């Protein structure tokens, strides 16, 4: 909480930048973290309905979803999970190093996370989406006949369409978040290197980190629900 009236403006040059609306650096840092969490609550509520809708349909059409979900390759899913977990650890390390003010290591870790994010997207695109598109499994009109042509009549294609609709909606939105995360990593690294007047403390890295962990969190639920669905 705010302490004194004018202290915010009378700071020594070695202290981190305090924006004029704040009293001191503690207040500023805490406010940013609270704001970020409020944003993440909003992100939880953003992905929540998608998972809920998926869960509802999976419950109601369990048999079909079970068959259809095994058309996804769980090995690729596990590989991508590993990549995201590594990147999440790297981001946590970046925050750790930034708190110790070892900026070189921060940038290395952020680069590592950005590379992981890119690898995730590449694997997703090349080994998962592209073959599905090739086989006509994107749920546009005519999906049912394409599904029957490719997999044969192993299940109800109407409901399989529902599965693939949810699959592309959720993984697509998640991939969009990954893409945004990678772009933010690159942007943050640039800022850390070029603009020490903007990045004056660890909080920007912490906020980016929170965002990235959230992206990881979505995948943690997405992976078992889509790739490992039991009957």
């Amino acid at each position, binding site marked *: 909480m*705010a302490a004194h009236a004018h202290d915010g403006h009378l700071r020594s040059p070695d202290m981190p930048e305090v924006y*004029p609306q704040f009293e001191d650096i503690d207040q500023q840092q805490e406010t940013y973290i*609270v704001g970020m969490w409020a944003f993440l609550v909003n992100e939880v*509520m953003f992905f*929540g309905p*998608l998972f809920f*809708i998926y869960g509802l349909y999976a419950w109601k059409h369990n048999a079909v979803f079970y068959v259809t979900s095994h058309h996804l390759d769980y090995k690729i899913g596990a590989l991508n999970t590993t990549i995201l977990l590594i990147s999440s650890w790297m981001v946590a390390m970046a925050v750790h190093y930034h708190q110790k003010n070892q900026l070189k290591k921060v940038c290395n870790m952020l680069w590592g996370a950005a590379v992981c994010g890119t690898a995730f997207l590449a694997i997703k695109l090349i080994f998962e989406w592209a073959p599905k598109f090739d086989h006509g499994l994107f749920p546009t009109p005519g999906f049912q006949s394409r599904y029957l042509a490719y997999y044969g009549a192993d299940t109800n294609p109407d409901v399989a369409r529902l599965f693939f609709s949810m699959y592309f909606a959720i993984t697509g939105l998640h991939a969009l978040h990954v893409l945004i995360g990678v772009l933010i990593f690159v942007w943050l690294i640039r800022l850390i290197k070029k603009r020490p007047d903007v990045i004056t403390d660890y909080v920007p890295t912490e906020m980016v980190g929170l965002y990235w962990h959230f992206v990881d969190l979505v995948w943690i639920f997405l992976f078992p629900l889509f790739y490992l669905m039991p009957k």
Partner: protein
Amino acid sequence: MSSTVIEQAVEREEPAAPQKNYLNADHTIKSWLLTGDHKRIAVLYLISVTFFFFLGGIAAAFIRAELTSPMGTLLNSETYNKMFSAHGIIMIFFFLIAAIPAVLGNFLIPLMIGARDLAFPRLNLASWYVFMLGGLLFIIALILGGVDAGWTFYTPLSSLYSQTQITLALVGLFLAGFSSIMTGVNFIATIHKMRAPGMTWFRMPLYVWSHYATSIIAILGTPVVAITLLLVALERGLRIGIFSPELGGDPVLFQHMFWFYSHPAVYIMLLPGMGVISEIMSCFSRRPVFGYKFVAFSSMAIAGLGFLVWGHHMYVSSQSVFQGIIFSLISFLVAVPSAIKVFNWSLTMWKGSVVFSTPMIYALGFLGLFTIGGLTGLYLSAIGTDIHLTGTYFIVAHFHYVMVGGTVMAFLGGLHFWWPKMFGRMYSEFWGRISAIVVFVGFNFTFFPQFILGYLGMPRRYHYYYIAPEWQVYNVLSTAGSTVLGIGFLMPVFYLLKSLKSGPIAGPNPWGATGLEWEAAASPPVTLNFDGIPKVVGPVYNYDAIEDSESFRREQMEKVTK
């Protein structure tokens, strides 16, 4: 208009050189469009929402004009559908949700809690740009032919059958939703972390409490509707199936997801208005708000319960009757915190020295109209009566009593109350009172007949009713009333704008009100709000401690009786 208070204020202010404040700190257009100052962003929002309000009003005028005749001769069916859709979408997403939080909330929350600005000024500015981009996209959608699926965008009409510009409109609403989320995040961080020394939670004005509750709803609810509308857009664009039965989905699920947000959204619109009323009631009754903690917690209770009642929009949607019963019970429960507020405002006036100034007339109007709106809501939360009344003009009248009679009255009341603070000038009290009364009378003439129409069974969204020409008299009454209402809404534009140029200088506290924004800040406030952060030592609404309270009341009464 020769109040001694104002004359004194003029004498105090006149000799000094024009004070530097947020309005004259910098005059360039760029300084407005790139500002981080919450007060300037509030003014930008004020201009935007006023524009959208009148745009939505024009659509309403067409609706009312069409309904004067049972044959529906003015517009064809499709144009009529587009008109009421445009009216609903603009008024809800681009006026009501933004009006009080983004204009008055933006301006006042830092002032009320003793902060120099909101926590994230650039996010605040970004929210305005996102809002405007959303509004622009929707206006483009209107120009390209409009939207005919109503503001609720029920599938499969919106996703498969409608041939209008729904995708563009959905993107616009998505952006408007994000603007509301940004404002919510900003308010939450600000209220938690930026309060001045001594400003404890229970010393905060109730206005801030209600905005806190609103922001919680905004971040918990808005993303749900955002993703739902996005899925509708995907279903429409790519024909992936999620909500349409032809594509394998379930349309009732869309309604669940939509109302999960859109019922709490009613409280996003209403709660800030309730905060405004608390402030006005206590100032013009010269008494603290009765039962402060009850009013504060009733805001939080409304926010929480509001998330558990969405099913009462869906009694006839084929949702299970068992769920309907539960939603009905919880809907009745919402009446409890709402009633706490109404009773506490009434008791605030009891034994108070009530002054019938412009904001107070608006606030009293709110009290009456909101009570009617709330009580008719009970008819609709009971399943049995709802099956008769749902989808009729009874619903239309009910939510207009809550939305217009509640939110718009509160917005206008708040705008009049804080206008001297925002721009440092007093408006014409005479015209202010006239407009408040005209709005009240016009409103009742417009919407009361619609209760009767709805009871008689006139469906909403129909543009002719030649099967029952006896409804015409009520429709003509309603249209006539809406003309009066429109004039009432136009009047403040003129006298408020005039006051900017030639109104008497207001001075820091023309109403003798309590609160940091009146007692510690100039009118208009300086860019960083205060000369140094104020320290709060006493309770809020400490009207007994204000020495000139009695003389203020006497002067105001003289003005009324004159």
